[in-house]
């Protein structure tokens, strides 16, 4: 049984340096600028382009949903928007969800924010929501992210061959997951 009420009203998740708080209209500016970052677009394999109005609407409609949890990642010291952290594809029959995180720009890489945010999100997924399994996909050309996920307990489960088309080339996609009983 998944604690749906903790999806509808997402608790704040506080770490040492970062805070995960409900993504909503307050973060539309930050989301919008992170979507303009070419490196971010490449690492998330985002083919779609968005208008500013779509992003405003997206951010404003995140609260209250029972099929996903969207968090804004905020730096505690100065309130800066660092990115977004999402649990989606919530599957109540199988107690599972998919995880994704994107930092708001390459200047934020390598500083430990992703690791801290991923750990907070996993604690929430397993201890609060009661999930059994959290899966993710990461592109083969993003070994740094894969390393972060491994540190947080994710295990490599397979490689989807040629699952991403990017700049006219095929790329593999790595599948990973962490189970509630795994060492984290």
């Amino acid at each position, binding site marked *: 049984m998944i604690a749906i009420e903790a999806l509808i009203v997402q608790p704040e998740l506080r770490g040492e340096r970062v805070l995960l708080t409900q993504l909503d209209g307050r973060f539309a500016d930050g989301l919008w600028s992170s979507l303009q970052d070419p490196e971010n677009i490449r690492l998330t394999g985002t*083919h779609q382009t968005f208008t500013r109005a779509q992003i405003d609407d997206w951010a404003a409609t995140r609260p209250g949903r029972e099929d996903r949890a969207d968090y804004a990642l905020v730096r505690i010291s100065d309130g800066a928007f660092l990115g977004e952290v999402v649990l989606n594809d919530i599957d109540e*029959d199988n107690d*599972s969800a998919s995880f994704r995180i994107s930092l708001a720009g390459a200047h934020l890489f390598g500083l430990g924010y992703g690791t801290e945010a991923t750990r907070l999100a996993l604690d929430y997924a397993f201890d609060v929501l009661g999930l*059994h399994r959290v899966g993710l996909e990461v592109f083969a050309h993003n070994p740094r992210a894969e390393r972060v996920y491994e540190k947080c307990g994710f295990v490599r489960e397979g490689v*989807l*061959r*040629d*699952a991403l088309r990017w700049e006219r080339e095929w790329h593999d996609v790595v*599948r990973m997951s962490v189970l509630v009983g795994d060492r984290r």
Partner: protein
Amino acid sequence: MINVGVNINALRVQPDLRGDSILLTQLDGTYAAQCLARLNDPETRRLTGTHDEFDLEQVRAWHRGLAGRDDRADWVILHAETGEFLGDVSFNVVDVANRSAQFRIALAAAAPGRGYGTSATRLVLDYGFDVVGLHRVGLEVFDYNPRARRVYEKCGFVAEGVKRQALRWDGEWHDVVVMAALATERGRPG
């Protein structure tokens, strides 16, 4: 072979696909009762990991909406001579940007073991690669369904990984095998 992109029209209007003893034709509202029987069959439910319950109206409404869609393709599998309902087969989740699709097939209770699954899978794969222009077709199969896995392997799918404990069935956790066939690997002996 040079593929420039996905042929959306080939998803929107699907032609009949003919094999030795089967005919694949657009799934629509006329097969709801047969599909419902399949959806309620305990063994088919187990093999497809179907947790949800459906009624006839839900199935009919879903089927009626399938013709003309450009993000998926759904066929009913019929016996070519008798017209017997044998199951249904789909590309769901077509990803145009990555030229990929997910494949699924479900046979009616009496159909497995007669070669219809293999035949239907081959017809749909040929269509996906040659007509739609897909590069990759993926699927998921449960660890307790080795027969289906053998069929997929015969048709060119390769196991790429195992999603641990991704399915709960009858109170137990089961692994889900992820497989895919690539356009660039066509013609390899299966």
